[in-house]
């Protein structure tokens, strides 16, 4: 008889991703709890985590944390595989790609605030395009563009400032080992 015990090795990197993703999911829930006048108009607080992760641990970790956040967040809020999930996924994918490019901007000049604003615009741009192509195939969708773009700018700036503040502090000790 062959004994098959599958052992999953959990590296420190895995633990870190899990903890950071948890923080991001928590912020997603806070996001969802904030009432907004327009569906889709959200502060996107979880992006603070993405930004901090990006600056501290690199793009790969940021992709993991964001991906897990979208997945777990949608499961917790009950919109997994619903239209909102794909909107969220598209927005996150585009903003991660943007961040992947923007992170190579000279750090001396462009801080987290720049990255945050660019990512916010990419996020809302992707969502609007998906909504136009799939959910509401009418140009009327774009009537909301100025509102969403304005929100992206404001929330992008605020989230970027919070991320910058967090990054200015010394790195915390590694996530506690359980």
């Amino acid at each position, binding site marked *: 008889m062959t004994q098959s015990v599958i052992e999953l090795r959990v590296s420190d990197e895995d633990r870190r991703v899990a903890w950071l993703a948890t923080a991001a999911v928590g912020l997603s829930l806070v996001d969802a709890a904030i009432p907004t006048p327009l569906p889709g108009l959200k502060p996107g607080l979880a992006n603070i985590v993405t930004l901090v992760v990006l600056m501290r641990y690199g793009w790969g970790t940021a992709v993991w944390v964001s991906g897990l956040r979208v997945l777990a967040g949608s499961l917790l809020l009950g919109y997994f595989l619903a239209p909102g999930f794909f909107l969220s996924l598209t927005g996150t994918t585009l903003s991660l790609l943007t961040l992947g490019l923007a992170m190579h901007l*000279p750090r001396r000049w462009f801080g987290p605030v*720049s990255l945050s604003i660019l990512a916010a*615009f990419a996020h809302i741009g992707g969502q609007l395009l998906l909504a136009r192509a799939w959910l509401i195939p009418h140009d009327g969708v774009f009537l909301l563009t100025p509102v969403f773009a304005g929100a*992206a700018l404001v929330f992008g700036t605020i989230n970027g400032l919070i991320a910058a*503040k967090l990054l200015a502090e010394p790195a915390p000790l590694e996530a506690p080992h359980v």
Partner: protein
Amino acid sequence: MKAWLALLLPGDWLVVLAGIAVVAASVPIFWQGGMADRAIIRQEGKVFAEVDLRSRKQFEVAGPLGNTLIAVEPGRARVVSDPGPRQYCVRQGWLMRPGEIAICAPNRVSVQIAGRTKVYDSISY
């Protein structure tokens, strides 16, 4: 406040300004509903004339009660006079936004502003 501002690097200011420019530019691009670019005059429900809103013209449209006078100016149009009893379409004044419409029902004449994209309202339905 000062501590927060110190977190903004010079490039960040540039990005913020560029962001403001993008938002400002998006307002006229997306809130035109299509810029108002044509006036459609209908008589008995059929299109009588489609006028470019860059021109300045006057139209006399004949209806069962008499002539309805319609003026088109750059960016706007209105019913100047109408033989109808209640004058609703005249009192509506200038129409400038896409989708706006003045209907002189008794004389069966209407003038509507149209943009690049079609704007729906309850009348369209």
